[in-house]
């Protein structure tokens, strides 16, 4: 829960939302905490919200660190796991 993961913004949606991609996972997240976001920006995503903007370099570094440390997959699972919220 404490972790945040870098993602690239693929499209902006109405209502302060955006579709982002993290590795091969696509996710609809909120951008309500940022002043402005555009397609192609890198953002740090935490519990479904973009917390701040990142440089591409910082994003890539963080992703490869998470992969090295073996925590990337766990995070992606958590992000994929929407099982409990569709009812």
């Amino acid at each position, binding site marked *: 829960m404490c972790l945040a993961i870098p993602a690239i913004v693929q499209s902006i949606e109405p209502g302060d939302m955006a579709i982002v991609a993290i590795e091969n996972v696509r996710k609809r997240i909120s951008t309500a905490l940022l002043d402005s976001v555009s397609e192609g920006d890198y953002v740090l995503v935490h519990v479904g*919200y973009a917390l701040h903007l990142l440089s591409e370099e*910082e994003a890539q570094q963080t992703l490869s660190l998470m992969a090295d440390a073996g925590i990337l997959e766990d995070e992606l699972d958590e992000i994929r796991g929407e099982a*409990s919220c569709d009812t």
Partner: protein
Amino acid sequence: MRYISEFRDRKLADTLAARIAREAQPGRDYHFMEFCGGHTHAIFRYGVQDMMPANVHFVHGPGCPVCVLPVRRLDDALELAERHGAILCTYGDMMRVPGTGRRSLIRAKADGADIRMVYSTLDALKIARNNPGKQVVFFAIGFETTTPPTAVAIEIAKSEGLENFTVFCNHVLTPTAIGYILSSADFAPGGPARIDGFLGPSHVSAVIGSRPYEAAAERYRKPVVIAGFEPLDVMQSVLMLITQVNEGRAEVENQYTRVVTRDGNQKAQALVAKAFQLRKSFEWRGLGSVTESALRIRPEYEKFDAETRFELADKQSREVKSCECPSVLRGVKKPTECKLFGTVCTPDNPMGACMVSSEGACAAYWSYGRLRDPGKTDAA
């Protein structure tokens, strides 16, 4: 070496280790508290402690949100689901934490309570929309990184006129906790941990900025260095702390300039200020009652406050007997000094919150600490 992960840049790590060894003056000890569970994790995973000279010590702090939530609040959440029949939504980390009588959310769920793990407050809102006939409570925990998402959810609920959504708010404040730890006069038996400086949290500081730590650093004359999550960030921050201690400085420095600014994310701060106000005091596991250390929902938003909507019974909440979580969180005991550690208490069968969350100190010791050679002293 038997660490889980190698440094990405071993050479840089070695260079930093050598500089730290040179800078750390023999004849004095350096105790640095890493506040945040993410740093605890990095320190263990990469064996950072073992790259430090023998007189540089890490003290693990209370920066794991699940760990500092007192049992009473978890018991309250159980009551919301079980007695009030609400759908209780919460982040996954919370599910296995034992409450009074070792009752956890996951057990209550198995017994039929409607408790749902969510990834985001947005999921909790969705559940509320899809279940108009039920009360839906979001069990909100966490430091300043999870507070803005809760604020946004309350704002959305208000704008949509959601009548069945409330938040059980347990958000706590990092700088206040740091100040409290330093004002250790108030500490319970066992005495304060000796602390010469702090590694400040990464993402919390991205939200609040570095400014909020300045008062505590100045008042208690202790340096704070905001550190990134990379093990190399941690090492560089330790070097910055040692330098400050040697020079008799007690400033807030920012190692993680890639992400953290002095003012932080002001939009997020404004959203939080709009929905929340300070609580007079709040109970922390391990620290006890701390003045103005947590947030509650403003009266203007009381429709969305579970504490206003539901009456919560008085209860006699108790920790699992002999769990040393409170002392571990204050930094006065190591997990291995708890007699349940590794025998009765393991991540599969946790007795305390510090073993549940991977950010918790007990879980970190369990996962990585055992890999260290028992007889080995810290060699650079």
